């Protein structure tokens, strides 16, 4: 285990201690939202960093997971866990479909197509007022009746750690090797007997399923969802979090999610300017430190070690 890995584990250990050392509820709430973004940013990194497929529909997929989970609970009277799982499945299946539909698209064309999908989903949710209450938003039952911020914080910490570990497990398997080979060269990968169509579609499906899980959990935590969680502004947050954390690695991206959420709260006085600042930082990171803050930190610790 490298020094960097020990530092990361230290952060996770410290995170587990926070409710016990009397961190204010406001910050526990903020960190819980940060863990939601950690799941979302790492799921985006799984697709973009490892398979080389760009998507701007990740926030919309999170929203899909949230709405499916909430609506199946409301209208089918399902308990929370099965409805959450249905949200994950819906996001995963739609992701698989988008992955298959966009097989031959690359770069800007793929990006624009995913924006279109994301917007179709957001507009549908907004327009289906009778079902979703449109922009007024839907009241959502809690994940656990009567649970406090510390309980939610631990649930999100466990979910984020489990999601990242699952992604790492997938990436260390032969499937992860196929993903990375596809990112490097699709024709070269196909020439070695790898079913590029299958794995490209599946990568989309896996990535969006994780986003759906994040969205479902988020809905039952904040207990009010609106179509704005599927907006391009939300997608912008996720993108900035993954890029600033380091989108070439799901762990860096997850830490980027938490870091930026903390900064969003700490810099609240700057108002909307925070977004401009993050945009500028993301552009500078892409230019000067493409592996993000945590990639840069890992290299630094490697050199010192």
């Amino acid at each position: 285990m490298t020094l960097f890995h020990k530092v990361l584990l230290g952060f996770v250990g410290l995170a587990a201690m926070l409710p016990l050392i009397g961190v204010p509820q406001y910050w526990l709430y903020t960190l819980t939202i940060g863990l939601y973004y950690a799941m979302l940013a790492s799921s985006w990194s799984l697709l973009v960093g490892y398979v080389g497929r760009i998507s701007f529909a990740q926030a919309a997929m999170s929203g899909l997971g949230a709405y499916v989970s909430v609506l199946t609970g409301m209208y089918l009277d399902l308990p929370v866990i099965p409805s959450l799982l249905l949200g994950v499945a819906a996001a995963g299946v739609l992701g698989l479909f988008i992955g298959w539909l966009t097989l031959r698209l690359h770069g800007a064309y793929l990006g624009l197509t995913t924006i279109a999908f994301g917007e179709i989903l957001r507009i549908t949710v907004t327009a289906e007022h009778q079902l979703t209450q449109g922009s007024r938003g839907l009241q959502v039952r809690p994940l656990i009746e009567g649970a406090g911020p510390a309980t939610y914080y631990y649930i999100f910490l466990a979910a984020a750690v489990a999601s990242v570990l699952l992604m790492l497990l997938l990436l260390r398997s032969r499937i992860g090797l196929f993903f990375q080979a596809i990112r490097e060269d699709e024709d070269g990968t196909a020439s070695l007997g790898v079913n590029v169509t299958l794995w490209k579609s599946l990568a989309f499906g896996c990535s969006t399923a994780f986003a759906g899980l994040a969205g479902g959990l988020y809905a039952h935590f904040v207990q009010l969802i609106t179509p704005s969680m599927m907006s391009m502004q939300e997608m912008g947050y996720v993108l900035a979090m993954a890029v600033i954390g380091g989108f070439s690695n799901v762990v860096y991206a997850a830490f980027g999610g938490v870091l930026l959420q903390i900064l969003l709260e700490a810099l609240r006085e700057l108002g909307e300017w925070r977004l401009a600042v993050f945009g500028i930082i993301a552009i500078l990171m892409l230019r000067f430190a493409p592996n993000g803050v945590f990639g840069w930190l890992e290299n630094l610790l490697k050199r010192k070690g």
Partner: protein
Amino acid sequence: MQPQLDISNLSKSFGGLQALKGIDLSFQKGELVGLIGPNGSGKTTLLNIIGGYYKASGGAVTLEGHKTDGLAPSTLARLGIGRSFQVTKVFKRLTVLENMLVGALADWRLSRSSARDKAHGVLEKLKLTRLADSPASSLSGGQAKLLEFGRIMMLDPKIVLLDEPFGGVHPELKRFMYEKIVEWNEAGATIILISHDMGSIFGLCRRVVTLSYGDIIADGDPETVRNDPAVLEAYLGDHHAA
């Protein structure tokens, strides 16, 4: 005897350009065939159709009696067609060993440890063992070509399509590659080799097929093809042929 690979009345058009004009060719198991022709004669197009990268406009490709029309490159690779590319397609951000493992692990029956052992064996044959854990981006052009050879070897292919394997390769490394191609062929693989390096083609191949403007203009042993007026004309122009 039924040919291992049979190409019948194969044509390919790109808009108004006819890259292949209804060619017929067949390859027996264990042949080592050179495919030559001036730029734009249709050599790489033919390889791309055999490998499943292009769909033919007409005609058929038959592998061991089964038509391969519409099959994806990955399926054809699993059926035993391995290929290298004119511009190498090594996975630069993966290590040399990981490059080798991709094809082997596409066969789900093979365990990771068996694939790894097999990869180390091939790397040793190719004298790339010391680079196993280096990123493929650190390889020289020649080493990248060798790595592509290695990746194909991992597939145990029946037919190997090599597109300009000697381009930009140091003469010493080129000799080493000759040896590997001959060993491969002697082990039973059919090899179809495209090269502009006539020394390599006439030195290695027992049969040479010449394409010009999408047609086969010569097909025979190297000596006959070398002296064929149509081949000389295709390469050097009318007055030289005369």
